[in-house]
């Protein structure tokens, strides 16, 4: 009997559930890739891992201490790769915390010159008890690490690491292995230490059970080597792809004689730009207008930017007695699917294929066009392709410029002044200069610098001036992120993004300074302690709403004795919390020997714990 239709809109999962450890396991390391990224969403990930049950993203993101703690714990255990120049403009609060997270994120570029487009997570979980095998999770998504509200799909696979190699995983392993090398050669960071062992485990990981009734899984990567993945031909084809191009659609439809055997769901404004002759090869639908907008009656202004509609990319093929569901990052576009003269595609893409008998997976009608999904669809009616207005033309020109600027390797030099750090930006390596077109300006600023307008970077980009000063900031506000804003004066159109630089000459103690700046006072110190200990279960800090807030914190703050219980518990469970507290106390000591945030009462209590910690450490 066929399984439930995979594309039924009721079939939904939470992104953050990807981070949830299987029973009896704990999060170990992870590698992620994405095209675009925003800091706030990236910050929601460590939160989801540390506070496993944190379901309310906004609530959590408003709690700077929770962020601080989760990032502190997780930053070294994750690596996130995203396309250069695609980190969104950041709000100051999120940006400030990104100092602790900055080594985690690496910007990379596609060798073929297109977009670095894959969206995946590869996560390793360690068993809590010895003797159990390591487990892994691989997720191939269409969703970027941003807060866009689109119709996105995810394929999530859980597996066990064995002794023998699972050949099928090689394309994913190859992609992950290539990642560090895709960063700008002039100043690329070193690869994360855990990556080689994670890749070894992934190579030997066998996936437990496949969803949607599939019996086989395959992976394919486009854009790294010559040759390109494209779906195998069958008798019938259905495509979900928000973005489309004529060449790619022609290639996909070739071999299918009847338009009724090629179904296409795409965005209307993209379809409008396709030649009618190519459109006639498909039976075309779009997502109904109502499926792409949320109730917004109370809004004065219709806001389309965050409601992007269809974003899933899937190719479903009926082939003999089997059904293939391909899904991942590749749109039905030339950049994603059609090789250029170099023999590889412009974009880097990853696709997964679920393959199984139709008797289990169903036909295209069963699997894709279930009643629930059909309800969301509407027949496509062509409109005139939009005329390119002055604003749209300016935006296009600025986008081109964004790619050029993002390709530069930037170094951010730190110089210690009396009580601040002076920041100067410099172009590393031998990249060609970038001349700004007439009427376009580029402003650059260190992301935490007070000058929100930024500094005019024209002379730096044209190499007329080798270095540019970006002002000075306290040590706790030094980070490698630059805010970049391109502006077309005539139309007023702006493109803003965040770009990573390499920090050169960063004074010691920056991370401790960030921690001190955020904790700042005794009350926060106790809150932070409760976070460190709270993850043991009872009395999670999530009680931070009006009524609950006090209870736990008050008890904690009432003096040494009430802290004793959770600390003793931490000692006996030995989850590493006490070592974290130890480190915290050391880092909170003011380097200049002025008053510490840590109250003397707590220091006295801690004095009796520190030796226990030492003996535990010795026993290990």
């Amino acid at each position, binding site marked *: 009997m066929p399984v439930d239709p995979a594309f039924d*809109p009721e079939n939904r999962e*939470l992104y953050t559930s990807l981070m*949830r450890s299987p029973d009896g396991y704990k999060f170990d390391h992870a590698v992620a890739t994405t095209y675009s990224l925003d800091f706030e969403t990236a910050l929601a990930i460590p939160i989801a891992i540390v506070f496993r049950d944190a379901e309310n993203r906004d609530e959590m993101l408003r709690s700077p201490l929770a962020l601080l703690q989760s990032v502190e714990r997780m930053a070294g255990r994750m690596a996130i790769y995203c396309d250069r120049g695609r980190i969104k403009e950041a709000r100051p609060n999120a940006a400030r915390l990104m100092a602790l997270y900055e080594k985690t994120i690496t910007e990379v570029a596609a060798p073929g010159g297109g977009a670095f487009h894959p969206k995946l997570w590869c996560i390793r979980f360690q068993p809590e008890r010895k003797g159990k095998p390591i487990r892994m999770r691989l997720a191939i998504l269409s969703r970027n690490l941003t807060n866009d*509200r689109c119709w996105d799909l995810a394929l999530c696979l859980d597996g066990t690491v064995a002794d023998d190699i699972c050949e099928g995983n090689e394309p994913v392993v190859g992609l992950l292995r290539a990642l560090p090398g895709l960063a700008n050669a002039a100043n690329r960071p070193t690869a994360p230490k855990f990556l080689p062992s994670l890749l070894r485990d992934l190579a030997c990981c066998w996936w437990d059970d496949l969803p949607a009734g599939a019996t086989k899984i395959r992976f394919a990567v486009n854009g790294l080597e010559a040759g390109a993945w494209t779906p195998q031909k069958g008798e019938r084809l259905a495509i979900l792809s928000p973005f489309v191009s004529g060449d790619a659609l022609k290639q996909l439809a070739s071999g299918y004689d009847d338009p009724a055997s090629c179904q296409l769901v795409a965005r209307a404004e993209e379809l409008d730009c396709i030649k009618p002759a190519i459109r006639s090869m498909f039976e075309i639908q779009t997502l109904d207008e109502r499926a792409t907008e*949320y109730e917004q*009656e109370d809004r004065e202004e219709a806001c389309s930017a965050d409601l992007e509609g269809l974003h899933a990319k899937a190719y479903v093929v009926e082939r003999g007695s089997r059904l293939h569901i391909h899904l991942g990052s590749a749109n039905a576009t030339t950049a994603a699917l059609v090789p250029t003269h170099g023999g590889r595609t412009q974009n880097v893409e990853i696709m997964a294929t679920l393959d199984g008998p139709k008797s289990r997976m169903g036909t295209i009608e069963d699997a894709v066009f279930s009643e629930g999904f059909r309800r*969301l669809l509407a027949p496509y009616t062509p409109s005139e392709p939009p005329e390119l207005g002055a604003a749209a033309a300016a935006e296009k020109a600025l986008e081109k410029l964004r790619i050029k600027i993002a390709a530069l390797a930037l170094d951010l030099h730190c110089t210690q002044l009396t009580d601040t750090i002076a920041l100067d930006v410099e172009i590393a390596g031998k990249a060609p200069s970038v001349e700004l077109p007439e009427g376009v300006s580029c402003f650059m600023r260190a992301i935490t610098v007070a000058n929100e307008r930024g500094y005019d970077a024209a002379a730096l980009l044209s190499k007329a001036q080798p270095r540019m000063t970006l002002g000075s900031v306290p040590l706790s506000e030094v980070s490698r992120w630059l805010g970049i804003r391109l502006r077309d004066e005539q139309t007023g159109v702006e493109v803003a993004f965040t770009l990573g630089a390499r920090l050169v000459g960063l004074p010691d103690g920056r991370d401790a300074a960030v921690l001190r700046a955020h904790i700042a006072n005794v009350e926060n110190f106790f809150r932070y302690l409760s976070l460190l200990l709270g993850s043991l279960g009872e009395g999670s800090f999530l009680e931070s709403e009006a009524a609950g807030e006090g209870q736990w914190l008050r008890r904690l703050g009432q003096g040494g004795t009430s802290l004793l219980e959770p600390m003793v518990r931490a000692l006996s469970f030995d989850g590493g919390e006490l070592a974290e507290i130890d480190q915290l106390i050391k880092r909170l000591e003011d380097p200049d020997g002025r008053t510490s945030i840590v109250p003397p009462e707590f220091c006295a209590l801690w004095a009796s714990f520190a030796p226990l910690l030492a003996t535990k450490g010795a026993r290990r």
Partner: protein
Amino acid sequence: MSYLAWIDFDPEERRRAQTLIDLFKQPEARDELGLGTVRDGLADLLFPGTSTIQTRLRYMLFIPWIYLEAQGRKATQAERIVIARDLEFQLSEALLRGGETIGVIGRDAGRNLKRLASSVYWAGLNTLGIRTLAGSHSTFMSYGPESLKDHDLKLWSSNLPKPPADFLVETCFALTEGEAAFLRDRIESHAGASLLNELARKGKTFTEDWPWQVSEDTISDANRAILRHAERFSGVMYGASLLYNLLLALRAADRPNAKKHADADTLAADYRSRIEVWKSELDHLALGDWDLDDLFGLIGRTSHNLTKSSRDFIRGWVTIARDGTGPVEADHHAIELLKQREHGLKRMKARLLHDAPLERWSGASGDARLDFRWGIASRYLGELADAG
């Protein structure tokens, strides 16, 4: 946990998606002209704690019982969330076993149910003071057996009735006398001024089609005034929906390849006659002395935010309904007002202006009269009256 699924980033996003999917299940139950703010504002004043997706009153007790059960288990927060979820499924099975068919949340979906009863009732439980601590479902599950013993920590109303021993095995929606007394008491203490409370005290069943038809002389002047606003608003704005649909039918009839609306002429005739009936009933609403500022002031007291463009639209339409003389379909002011309103709300998706969205018109868009959740509220009142 291998799966292939649509993905949401956070529960809020999932909730929105769910609302959207629900929208598609009930064709055209949509707020085409953006009247939802006034509708929901008045409904909150009259019948606090209710919502359109609620079904039966006893869920106001089932949910706390299930949560207390889950909170009493020695488990982690995550485990308790799973336990509560499982208990909710058991509850729907127990209700079906008890012979209930109407209003059982999860009757068709079974364990695939995506919107649990607890989420449908969560806000209402707080409004009526049955749930006494603010917080999300998962916040509640962070409290375990120790927290339940802590008398300083109030999670649930203190005199919450005890659950029947076998309510997760076989149960029904009938309220016991004690349960009904508790619910009446909650409504009294947390929504004392509301019409819901005034009618609940009556202890009887109401069969009127509309809340303003209830002829109880003990309805306070304040509630009478709210009802009068509700009646007028429902009556007047119904005409706007009818004209909107008539205009769509006329446009559809004009389109040479309007495959879907071959019956557009019949539809237009139908809407014309409904508009005639509507016009003939306007006198009864005595629009001449309707104080719209007073209505907007009432909405301002609720959590709903009425925008300037919505206020302007309502004022404009009331003026047309009050002063119009000829047939409304020839009234350029009326047509222009609807076009502007739809464009303001939907931009490129406005059906009065653009053909592609018109193609997707079902023939009837939001053409039902507003009842301000009277359907739910009158069922609740009946359930309270029947308790025993």
